[in-house]
């Protein structure tokens, strides 16, 4: 059992630190650059992304395992997944609007942006790629749990990156770079430095959890 917990913990923490979607794998750069100007909007966007990623993976993973792979329709993956995500985002938007209007007010503006956020489609496709092989070895439950934990870890990683970068950015706003670096270029260069700091986490998670278990 402890090996299961270790696997899950490794997946979760390496998705946040080592394989951070934004800073290491380049998924979801547009919202990362566009929405990270203010702290409250970065938190809102991050939370909305966590929720949508989790629900999208929860739906698409069994869909791939039991429908697409069984029927030999694996080539339909892209079309089916993006449609599922588009429908889910719409459903979440309608549900929030109807039942939790307060939450809708704070998160609602970010939901339309999420359909076309590549980290959501990315996490569903990568979860299938990485964990579908475990289904034969450990059963569907284990593989499904791995995929779900991966999706939450990726979402939390997105939130962490947004928060950290929001702080960096507020310092950069007050700096005085050369004329042509003002605005986006200096933001990108500071993103490079933030990303450089995340490279230091390579190999860290496996070793720590390996030592603990």
């Amino acid at each position, binding site marked *: 059992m402890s090996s299961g917990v270790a696997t899950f913990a490794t997946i979760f923490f390496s998705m946040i630190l080592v394989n951070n979607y934004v800073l*290491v794998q380049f998924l979801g750069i547009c919202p990362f650059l566009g929405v990270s100007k203010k702290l409250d909007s970065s938190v809102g966007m991050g939370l909305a992304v966590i929720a949508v990623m989790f629900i999208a993976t929860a739906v698409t993973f069994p869909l791939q395992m039991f429908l697409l792979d069984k029927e030999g329709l694996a080539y339909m993956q892209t079309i089916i997944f993006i449609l599922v995500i588009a429908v889910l985002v719409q459903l979440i938007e309608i549900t929030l609007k109807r039942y939790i209007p307060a939450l809708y007010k704070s998160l609602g503006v970010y939901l339309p942006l999420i359909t076309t956020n590549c980290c959501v489609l990315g996490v569903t496709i990568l979860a299938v790629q990485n964990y579908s092989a475990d289904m034969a070895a450990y059963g569907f439950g284990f593989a499904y749990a791995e995929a779900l934990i991966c999706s939450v870890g990726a979402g939390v990683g997105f939130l962490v990156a947004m928060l950290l970068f929001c702080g960096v950015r507020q310092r950069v706003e007050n700096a005085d770079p050369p004329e042509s670096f003002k605005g986006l270029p200096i933001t990108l260069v500071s993103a490079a430095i933030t990303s450089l700091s995340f490279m230091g986490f390579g190999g860290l998670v496996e070793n720590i959890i390996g030592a603990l278990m």
Partner: protein
Amino acid sequence: MNEKQSKWKVFTNGIIKENPVLRLVLGCCSALAVTTTVSGALGMGLSMTFVLLGSNIVISALRKVIPGKVHLPCYIVIIATFVTVVEMVLHAYMPDLFKTLGVFLSLIVVNCIILGRAEMFACKNTVIDSALDGLGMGVGYILVMFLMSSIREIIASGTWLGIQLIPDSVEKMTVMGSAPGGFFVFGCLMALCIWIENKLNKPIERKMCGDCPGCGHADAACSQGKDGKGGTEA
């Protein structure tokens, strides 16, 4: 003559005036991720151009049929179809390139350039203009990808398209090939672009995600036109 000039303008618009990556700041994810090698970047650029051309043609041909309220799902299905075609062709005939591009090939579906051009151009213009716009945007995208990947490949591994340029004895800056290098090169290229703009006295304001009309918001150009508020559609 005049007609020809305007068509030529539509085509070149995407290459310099509205270059998708450096001036409209769309589709940065793939521009950062697959520019580690020149061959990968060219493959990505060509795939992108094909999808952009196909989706622009189909969307502009169907622009009067697609209802404004569900235009986003319709566009996504059309784009996803073309992406699937590219995926299957590359998987069958160029397995190496397919592996290099990996998940970013499927992610062309959510690339803002394609949806952005559908929302900003194809839904309001004729089929021929949209095709030219798609081609122009594609060429603009390929040029930026080519430039970025050349810089990164030469600095990071000393090769260009696989040809050795810097001898093995010289230490390479491998960090340029990984994530931070991508951000850095992109930032410097954009700074160069702004510097040229300032020299030519033609600065533009770059829009970022959240206030660009590409993502199919309720207030996007197309849905407005269809609902009869914007009135861009005849």
